[in-house]
């Protein structure tokens, strides 16, 4: 019986090691690689989250489910030399339109995705379909928004929000707060670009200098 339990422990630890996912920080290249997987729901349904930690409150609400903690990611960005904006507060999220809203600040970032068979790096911008009320399509402007206090207190798990937000570590300055409240813009994953539900992807985040 003891041998059986020991064998079981060895097998389970080997299996968990085989699936171990880690945040990779490459200081020389100025990039962070976040392991994630595709959530097929948001290839057909709108969301404001591009990437969320699977154990966080919004873990199942994003196009990509991150397999590592958003807090570790925050510290990795700081280690890389990024400066957080920390200019969006919870009350800014109540803006009724983008005209009333505020844009996130912080170091500029570029985000790419790779997966088995992706044929090189795919910009996050191409993996997200942006639909606007007046056809006003804007290029993604991802920033290191910070929001460490909110992230640590409420643990929403948000890595990358698709509009300016008080919760995400990275959010999109192209769309101020209030734009989504006013239904000026909506986002969903691009099923023609992204691989199917459950596929493992690497999210490569680079600091734009």
């Amino acid at each position: 019986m003891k041998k059986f339990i020991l064998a079981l422990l060895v097998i389970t630890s080997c299996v968990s090691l085989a699936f171990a996912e880690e945040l990779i920080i490459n200081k020389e290249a100025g990039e962070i690689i976040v392991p994630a997987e595709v959530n097929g729901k948001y290839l057909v349904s709108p969301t404001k989250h591009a990437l969320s930690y699977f154990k966080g409150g919004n873990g199942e609400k994003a196009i990509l489910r991150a397999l590592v903690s958003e807090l570790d990611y925050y510290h990795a960005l700081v280690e890389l030399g990024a400066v957080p904006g920390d200019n969006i507060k919870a009350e800014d999220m109540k803006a009724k339109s983008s005209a009333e809203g505020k844009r996130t600040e912080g170091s500029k970032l570029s985000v790419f995705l790779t997966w088995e068979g992706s044929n090189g790096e795919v910009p996050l911008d191409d993996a997200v379909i942006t639909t606007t009320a007046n056809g006003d399509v804007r290029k993604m402007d991802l920033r290191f928004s910070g929001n460490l206090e909110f992230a640590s207190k409420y643990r929403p798990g948000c890595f990358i929000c698709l509009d300016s937000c008080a919760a995400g570590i990275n959010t999109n300055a192209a769309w101020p707060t209030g734009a989504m409240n006013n239904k000026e813009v909506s986002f969903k994953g691009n099923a023609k670009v992204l691989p199917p539900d459950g596929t493992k992807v690497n999210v490569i985040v680079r600091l734009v200098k």
Partner: protein
Amino acid sequence: MIACLYNALLWSMLITVANLQNEWFDMRVNTGGIFFAVAFVLALLFSMIKPLRKKLNSFAMCFFSLVITCAGLFYLLGIEGLPVIPASVIREGLMQNHLDFHVINIALIAAALGGLILTLFTTKYER
């Protein structure tokens, strides 16, 4: 009892998916939790209110519920969302995010058809 549960599950799926059309709602709740909670409340109501129970306890009513649910889901989700959203509701409720949508869809179809056949036999004796 089985007919009440069958109707409750079908109507709950339709109510949950209808609510998911609101992005604000979808972003803030565990949709699977809503599905199971609504199904539980409806099953209680359907089995406790006698006139309702009598009305629902027939094969015809179960068949009607199935048709309305399928038509409603198709109207709300279209051909693109139909194989994904109901399965994602179940997956979120079970907190099993690695379950394949195809597997859940097969289980849903089997439960819908199997449940309907079961009501064909049980409703005769449960009046």
